[in-house]
């Protein structure tokens, strides 16, 4: 590829520090990171587009701009909200006119671990918490649910984009060393938080999955779920979650396959009147179905 021919820029005098206006512009442009997402190069075109305002300021020489744009079209995949951390880093190196191969390897080595950390923090932790808070408001018919959801989620997203851009641009290459040295520990700590929250979600949001079998017994029908609750409340949600985990992990089930499985479990269960709900089982069974 043409981009491999160049290892240094023609003009190696460090450029002036980028002004805040340009940095802010790149923060907003970074929202389009995945606009041209594809399987060959993933986020590369969106990345280059986000970086352009800075690159154009740094490389006044057209040949250097072409070189820089070309190597910034490399494969890239990182977390879309945390990408400004990588951007700030690469910008500070571009500004110092660092050796191109160094920029390339730093970009790749920062982007990948950041992807994992960002997923763990944002998609796996923050969004479930916001969803848990606001979804019930929406279900009860309050417009405040979606509005709060947007304000909190988008607010955190933009704060993250701004904060990381300035933080990493100011820290420059020192940030890379810190990040990569502790990537494993940060990911583990974020996973602890995530796993803890999932545990909470299982009982907090899964409680609707219960048995509806109620055996007629004069004044006091025997509701099987009540007995189950005495053993462990939310036992069914817990078992189903663990079942999904085991099937994905050990048997390589895809999410689609599991969704299909639950459709079968749900409908077959309802045919025999096992699950809670307000319906009439297809097969006449000697017990009542309660919600």
């Amino acid at each position, binding site marked *: 590829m043409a981009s491999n021919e160049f290892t240094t820029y023609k003009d190696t005098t460090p450029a002036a520090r980028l002004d805040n206006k340009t940095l802010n512009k790149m923060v907003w442009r970074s929202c389009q990171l995945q606009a041209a997402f594809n399987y060959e190069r993933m986020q590369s075109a969106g990345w280059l587009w986000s970086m352009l305002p800075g690159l154009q300021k740094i490389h006044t020489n057209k040949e250097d701009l072409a070189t820089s744009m070309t190597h910034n079209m490399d494969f890239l995949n990182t977390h879309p909200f945390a990408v400004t951390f990588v951007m700030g880093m690469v910008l500070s190196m571009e500004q110092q006119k660092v050796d191109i191969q160094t920029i390339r390897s730093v970009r790749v080595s920062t982007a990948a671990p950041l992807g994992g950390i960002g997923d763990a923090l944002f998609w796996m932790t923050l969004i479930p*918490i916001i969803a848990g808070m606001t979804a019930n408001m929406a279900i009860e018919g309050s417009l405040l649910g979606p509005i709060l959801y947007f304000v909190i989620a988008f607010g955190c997203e933009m704060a993250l984009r701004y904060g990381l851009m300035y933080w990493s641009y100011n820290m420059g290459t020192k940030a890379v060393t810190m990040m990569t040295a502790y990537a494993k520990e940060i990911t583990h700590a974020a996973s602890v938080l995530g796993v803890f929250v999932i545990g909470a979600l299982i009982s907090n949001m899964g409680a609707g999955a219960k048995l509806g079998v109620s055996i007629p017994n004069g004044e006091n029908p025997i509701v099987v779920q009540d007995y189950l609750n005495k053993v462990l409340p939310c036992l069914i949600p817990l078992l189903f979650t663990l079942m999904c985990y085991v099937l994905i992990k050990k048997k390589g089930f895809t999410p689609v396959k599991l969704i299909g499985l639950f*459709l079968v479990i749900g409908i077959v269960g309802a045919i025999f009147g096992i699950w809670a709900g307000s319906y009439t089982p297809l097969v006449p069974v000697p017990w009542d179905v309660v919600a």
Partner: protein
Amino acid sequence: MDFNIVECVLLAILTFFFAIDQFSLTEIVYRPIIACPIIGIILGDMETGLAVGGAYELMMVGNMPVGGAQPPNAVLGGIVAMVFAVKANMDTNAALGACMIFATFGQYVVTLTFTIMSGLMAKADKAAEEANPRGITNVLNISMLILGSLFAVIAVLAYTGGTAMADTLQNLSDNASWLMGGLSMAGLMMRFVGFGILLKIMFANDMWGYLLSGFALALVIGNIEATASATLILIAFIGIMLAVIDFKLSSMSKNAGNGGMSDGI
């Protein structure tokens, strides 16, 4: 039932926007909890939109575009669920259970688009070699146009099909309540798939205690009337503490391994 050309056009425009939003722009607005009420306004029933959106959002927890994997598509799923719920009067969970097939189909549309768009990279490379920023902008615009249009077309098909099938579905839910009850339960259970995916990514064998203590604490906090509505925030507070302790411990033992004098760099 009633096919309405204005609804149909508005829905197509909205879908065009949501399709792009699921990967760029805000990456928040397409989420069911926000998208479904907006679709509801177009279909003339925002109440249902809020109910479906809230329930779908819970189902989507964990079903995120993580690590390049595509989950069942929330944009198409939300549209179909809304058409079922509003036009065919299906109950929320039943509509969500029934929309899953379409959401899965949407996932393949996304995969297809991402494959097609690889072809645009040659165009982007050329623009880069010529130091032509406008060329890169064009690549982005073309990509978004393709993705948005594909989804808009499918949304129109889903709307037309869903509205045409509405009467049949309505009869079905009257005569076969067990099917709707089953779909309802299946729709509710699908969130466990999301939890399972999250666990696959994050869980390690030293984390059983964290998982179960989260489960236990949420049960306790959730059953106390005064704290129930804030359960997850309280859980997050405790979780942050656990994460900080974990980080301190693991970085301490790492530094000790390096001779105890490392400054972390």
